[in-house]
């Protein structure tokens, strides 16, 4: 058996283990061990992958395996990774790992919470290792369903409404996707679901023209594509901390990854032809999200709109249709995943103490909880693209890449997207100034305590990852670039 299957097997084992647990201690033990194993596995995979590439292996997908699953329709359980999926697996494992630690002290129904959490992980990891369209879609659905329960049961505020809205909108996206996948399957005429084999087939352009929008929007809903992004603010605001982290950090990347792997990869002609519509939409996402974030007062809403802006940049870059911008898109997925997870972790920790997320009711937290406050400043600086942190390298790669398109339309859209760096600075500094600096607004907050060990641990791991990519971006960028390059019929 291929070792990549471990990415699915470990969460499955965790799931089985959790069924048998009797107390909190066992639950924690299982989750901590399992998520650490996943993290180690992802790290090992990264090293092995880079090692293989350095040894001169130029296969598009490495560590591939395939097993027949349903022969009549040629559905296989086929797996394999390239640089893009390695980056995403690394991201997912870091976030599952830190998410476990931020939920260390969860009180209501911990066992059930972690059960759904594991199921979500199965979906996420499975999605990133699949190279078969059908398996990919199946894992995609596995990842979506637990979200409903996690928000509906463990959430806060208008949780039922948010959970329902999120699920319905994402399911709407899946419906489009399913039609798109069937369309690909029949239009290609190859009667295979394998992505690599499909890519060798030429889907007639007439068909591409309607399949491409279906798949792009289908995945785009999850990637917060304007105007299908409104599930995100409500959903994030109501979700519990670890779920927000996983959702914004990883799940939204499923959308970007899917657009990349399926929509653009299989239908390059239509992608090129129709890209202007989506460039407009994503360009709007980028600035629109940032402007909306300026006036929000709820910490999670600010971050949700910021995610709309940053994820908009991912899709925007994919559509720019050149290697540099696409490499930047994947780096932005990685970077945004890490920093938004850090944001949501910190917001959850602050909310757990102050019981409010309204920035008007807080202030001067720097004095009360310096560790969390410094963490928040670092996350903010990463978000506004400070060199040395991951956001900068990703955004610059995107901008330089996007600028290589010499026609007026692309130029104008790139310039508009670039302006987001200023607007981002405005909303980040506004929050930092209101929330952390100044005088303490609420007297009761003075008794609050700073982060405890498991919270510190999660925050530090995320900061190290962000700074690691920001300081030494070459290995990530080369890893991704190689795959973009070799996959692409430019």
């Amino acid at each position: 058996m291929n070792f990549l299957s471990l990415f699915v097997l470990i969460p499955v084992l965790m799931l089985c283990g959790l069924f048998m647990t009797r107390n909190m201690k066992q639950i924690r033990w299982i989750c901590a061990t399992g998520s650490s194993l996943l993290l180690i596995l992802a790290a090992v995979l990264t090293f092995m992958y880079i090692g293989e590439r350095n040894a001169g292996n130029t296969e598009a997908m490495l560590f591939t395996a395939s097993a027949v699953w349903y022969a009549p329709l040629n559905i296989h359980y086929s797996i394999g990774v390239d640089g893009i999926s390695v980056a995403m697996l690394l991201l997912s494992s870091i976030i599952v790992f830190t998410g476990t630690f931020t939920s260390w002290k969860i009180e209501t129904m911990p066992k059930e919470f972690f059960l759904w959490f594991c199921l979500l992980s199965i979906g996420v990891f499975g999605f990133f290792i699949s190279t078969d369209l059908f398996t990919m879609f199946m894992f995609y659905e596995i990842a979506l369903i637990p979200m409903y329960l996690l928000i509906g049961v463990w959430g806060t505020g208008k949780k039922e409404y948010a959970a329902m809205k999120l699920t319905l909108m994402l399911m709407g996206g899946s419906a489009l996707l399913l039609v798109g996948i069937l369309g690909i399957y029949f239009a290609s005429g190859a009667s295979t679901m394998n992505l690599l084999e499909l890519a060798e087939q030429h889907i007639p352009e007439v068909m591409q023209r309607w399949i491409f929008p279906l798949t792009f929007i289908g995945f785009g809903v999850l990637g917060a594509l304007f105007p299908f992004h409104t599930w995100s603010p409500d959903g994030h605001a109501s979700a519990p901390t670890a779920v927000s982290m996983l959702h914004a950090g990883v799940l939204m990347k499923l959308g970007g990854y899917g657009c990349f792997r399926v929509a653009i990869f299989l239908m390059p002609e239509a992608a090129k032809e129709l890209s202007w519509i989506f460039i407009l939409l994503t360009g709007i996402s980028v600035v629109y999200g940032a402007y909306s974030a300026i006036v929000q007062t709820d910490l999670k809403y600010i971050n949700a709109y910021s995610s709309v802006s940053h994820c908009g940049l991912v899709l925007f870059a994919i559509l720019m249709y050149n290697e540099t911008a696409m490499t930047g898109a994947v780096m932005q997925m990685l970077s945004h995943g890490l920093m938004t997870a850090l944001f949501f972790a910190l917001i959850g920790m602050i909310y757990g103490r102050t019981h409010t997320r309204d920035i008007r009711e807080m202030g001067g937290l720097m004095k009360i909880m310096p560790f969390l406050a410094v963490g928040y400043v670092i996350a903010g600086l990463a978000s506004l693209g400070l060199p040395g942190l991951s956001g900068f390298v990703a955004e610059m790669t995107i901008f330089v890449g996007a600028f290589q398109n010499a026609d007026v339309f692309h130029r104008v859209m790139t310039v508009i997207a670039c302006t987001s760096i200023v607007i981002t600075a405005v909303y980040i500094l506004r929050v930092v100034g209101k929330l952390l600096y100044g005088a303490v607004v609420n007297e009761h907050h003075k008794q609050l305590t700073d982060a405890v060990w498991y919270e510190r641990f999660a925050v530090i791991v995320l900061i190290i990852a962000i700074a690691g990519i920001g300081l030494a971006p070459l290995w990530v960028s080369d890893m991704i670039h190689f795959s973009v390059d070799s996959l692409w019929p430019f």
Partner: protein
Amino acid sequence: MEYTLLILLLPMLTFIGLGLFGMKLRPAVAGCIGTLSLAVTALLAYMTAGQYFLMPRVDGAYEKLLPYNFDWLHFTENLQISLGILLDPISVMMLVVISTVSLMVHIYSMGYMKGERGFQRYYAFLSLFTFSMLGLVVAPNIFQMYIFWELVGVSSYLLIGFYYTKPEAIAASKKAFIVTRFADLGFLLGILLLSFFTGTFDFEALTSGDTSVFSGAAGVTFMGASVMSWALALIFIGGAGKSAMFPLHIWLPDAMEGPTPVSALIHAATMVVAGVFLVARLFPLYIIAAPEVLVGIAYVGAFTSLYAAVVACMQTDIKRVLAFSTISQIGFMMVALGVSGMGGHEGTGYMASMFHLFTHAMFKALLFLCAGAIIHTIGSNEMSRMGGLRKYMPVTHITFLIACLAIAGIPPFSGFFSKDEILSATFSFSPVFGCFMSFVAGLTAFYMFRLYYGIFWGTPAKHEHTPHEAPKSMTIPLMILAIITVFAGFIPFGQFVSSDGQPYTIHLNLGVAIASVVIALIAIGIATYFYKSKCDIPERLLNMFPHFHRAAYHRFYIDEFYLFITKRIIFNCVSRPIAWFDRHVIDGTMNGIAYVTQRASVLIRGLQSGQVQQYAFVFLLGTLLIVLLVVLI
């Protein structure tokens, strides 16, 4: 010169060390670590300078050295960011300036910041700033410069907001960051344009004087200007933001909310001249590809210098006077670059600009540190709270006077030499321009001596306790800087730095020199007459032009204009409607779809009632309808 890497590494490691473990150290220990590491850095910088300028010249010019350059990030086949160290006359000169002023500020802060909460944090941020600034000046490519450009912006943000419980400090730090960030957008777009058409980020290739590097841009125009002009103008916007050129200057006076040594280091001597340095770094490219942009730079600089000088005459907060004076002096440097040509006598402006950057860094840092000593003992920035301090603070008094004489351009102080070169460069560009700048130089002398007399002469204000001289840790840096200020003018600067690298001997243009000294003396005379002892002429003059006075005091309402744009337009007319639109229109549509679905299902629900009679009735009705249809058609 492999050890130059240490110049960057030491402050960086100090930052990391103090940032992570500073809180566990005693404040004095943290301060000593920071200062010692910077002393070593400064020594290495001096060694580099010595070794570099003693190197044999190649074809009359100093060689450009590139001791380090490693790949950092790849974009496309041509465009790659590398991080490295470039040593050439101006970067070596900047290394000396930055490390000297930074060292002085480190020592000075030991006394000034004593007992402050967050002393360790302060030193960590100072190290971060020094590291970023040093990285900026040695950058061998424009993208590295941009990286460190952003880093100095952040360290400036952190240091302005050092007193993070003070609302003014928070607002000022935010403003500084956002305004410079806005300018950086221009810089970024400029880099993108430039790199797209030239296919390189490297200064070496860009400034080689070879026109083939931007042959790709030939004939490409946009709105009547060539694309190279656009790129270079955009890059200048970035420089104008950091160097506080009108109308992007608004952040600098507010930045005075930071601790005074920080103002001396960042907002007087080093970071604010980054824009000048940027233009100087790309100077050969400006000359060949976009001379019209250079002329624009000269006009912007000239207007800024006049504007800031006029405003400086009306301010009563001593740090703000100095801030506007800084803006005005940077305007001088920009003018010098703008009017300069290439090579020999033509290139006087370039040399003069760099020379003035050097001398200005020293005497302006000195002025700020003196102001710090005064504020330290008085506890206020307002001139009305001062007066007659010369008796209590002799060292501060003498050093401040030296710096005032230098900035006013009185020989033999350093400012005279550099300013004289700038003036003669402007005169050879255009006599009208020269007269204009001479007038601004006169204003400089006037407002500086207004400040000087206001602080040290006149009737002493009432103080709760008698003012006293600052401690040794603060006066020693003052004295060292004063010595440099006195003697720096005699450095044969043109031998080291010139537009084309060839040694250039500075000739004192006697006519210009005498005229400028006379103007300065007259201005000082007027200031003496007005402000040395009580005199009602200034009062009467101000009353004659009340509107002008009020406008100048309020900096001609530029800040209010910006506030209007940001608060009323962006915040209330763009962001709020967008947020409303999102919640009510887009999300409303989604909710509307859900609502319609639900209503529709309620309507149809009646059909699935489970009553057999109803089903039978509908069935019959349906059959009847079909039969009818069939019969009729």
